[in-house]
């Protein structure tokens, strides 16, 4: 691949994906725990909202985000900043769009955790900090990691949301999938093919990693909860 624009685009895409994944980890782990183990009023509504990006057309989500984050949007008017067509806007869109992928992984990991382990850990003198660091995370990390990798891979290939929120400013807000689309529009099939092959390989490698982690995870579960 000889196009310097592609490599800048790739770099931006990786940066957006990494930041998105990190934010999802901070946001999604507590949320996944709450959805897996707490009962509260309006839980089903919350679950439906966070799963909505699975079925909602990305352009619809992107459109609403554009209204929210744009120049005349409520955020700009209240706080005085505009995230549309910027890196931050791409990240906000990606976080919302990949949330269900990360969350499903986290929630399943927490759901299959035997709560007796947590209760017993507390009776053995462990406060919540130790319970999380020495019991919950060491047992559920493969599930958390696989949710994060899926979200990362999903963000890599995002199109609709980032096109709406970010526009397609080369080097600034253009992501790889949009780059490929632009190359095809410009009849540069060679570049489109190379970029597509790179994304294909990356996606396969990531999904393969997720499958491997799932097997690791299953083998760690004690037989009584399997």
């Amino acid at each position, binding site marked *: 691949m000889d196009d310097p624009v592609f490599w800048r685009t790739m770099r931006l895409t990786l940066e957006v994906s990494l930041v998105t994944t990190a934010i999802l980890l901070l946001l999604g782990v507590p949320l996944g725990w709450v959805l897996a183990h707490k009962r509260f009023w309006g839980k089903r509504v919350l679950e439906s909202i966070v799963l909505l990006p699975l079925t909602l057309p990305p352009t619809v989500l992107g459109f609403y985000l554009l209204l929210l984050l744009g120049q005349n949007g409520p955020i700009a008017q209240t706080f005085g900043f505009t995230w549309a067509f910027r890196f931050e806007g791409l990240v906000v869109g990606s976080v919302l769009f990949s949330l269900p992928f990360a969350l499903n992984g986290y929630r399943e990991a927490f759901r299959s955790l035997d709560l*007796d382990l947590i209760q017993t850990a*507390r009776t053995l003198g462990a406060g919540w900090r130790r319970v999380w660091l020495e019991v919950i995370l060491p*047992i559920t990390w493969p599930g958390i990691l696989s949710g994060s990798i899926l979200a990362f891979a999903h963000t890599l290939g995002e199109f609709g949301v980032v096109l709406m929120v970010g526009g397609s400013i080369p080097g600034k807000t253009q992501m790889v999938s949009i780059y490929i689309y632009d190359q095809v529009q410009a009849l540069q099939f060679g570049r489109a093919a190379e970029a597509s092959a790179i994304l294909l390989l990356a996606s396969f490698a990531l999904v393969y990693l997720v499958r491997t982690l799932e097997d690791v995870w299953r083998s760690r579960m004690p*037989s009584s909860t399997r």
Partner: protein
Amino acid sequence: MEIAYALEHPVKLKLNLHVQGFTVLLGESGVGKTSLLKALAGLIPATGQPFAGLRAEERPVGYLPQHFALFPHLRAWQNVAFPLAHLPAAQRKQKALAYLEQMGIAELAERFPRQMSGGQQQRVALARALAREPQILLLDEPTSALDMATREEVFGGVLERLKSLQIPTLVASHDQWLAQRAHQVAVLTRRGLVQQGPADEVFTRPATLEVARLVGFRNLFEGRVRGLEGDWAWVESPLGVFQVARPDWSMLGQKVWLGLRSEEVFTLDGPQNRVQGRVRRLSWQGLRLRGQLEVGGAVLDFLLPRYKQAQLGLAEGQQLEVALEPRFLHLMPS
């Protein structure tokens, strides 16, 4: 240790319980045995003494759930070292190994839980609970995850060790085998705690019909007190009139329940309390023969040791006369 607890959820329960040595809280499922243990461990909200107002991690209890809850990612010794976090690293392992030694499984120290049998996991979990240096041990159905056939072999040793520890131990169970081996038995029903006392007392002299059923009385008959004299009462029942040890509450003409354990039907060849009937439904239960004696419209369930059957050679359909030991017939208020 005296326990006075009240909880609202998931079951409404209020009781005063005396825990001395190895105490079994006997009751059917759903009466709140597990909930009481969890409340004592601080895992569900409750009011009462001891440990009032302390969080779970602050309570000096050794809690063992039904499936032992060993941490699957930690080796046996690391599991036992979990409550020893306040010690320096070198001492932790040493101390953990000492507790494993105490439970007789030092050789399993490096194994992960999935590499151990149920009985071995239980010992590791007990060692871990002991490492907490608890003022009370709370065991939830410790024999239910074990194979019935090997229960005695697997849990017998553990039981002896636990009894020798001098730590008050409260065990929630519906296992009569276990309750018979306890120092104290407390019987919990939907109406609350109905009887507590030494195991032999609860098993031979249940306070109510409900307790009698729970501790394994199969022969329970309605009767009426027809005579009282000295230490004895005469009770009319569907099987006939029997001479029975007289409880201090009994009055002439009173309606009562008459109970007799199946294994105590063939106890006497004397002149008292003779019953004649037809033998039916003989079946071997392990090394003991279970059967029924049909007397008029009533049925007397019995359980014979093998040597006794070798002497008697019982067969279905034959007539048989037995004598019931007056001291083993037990009266309960109706």
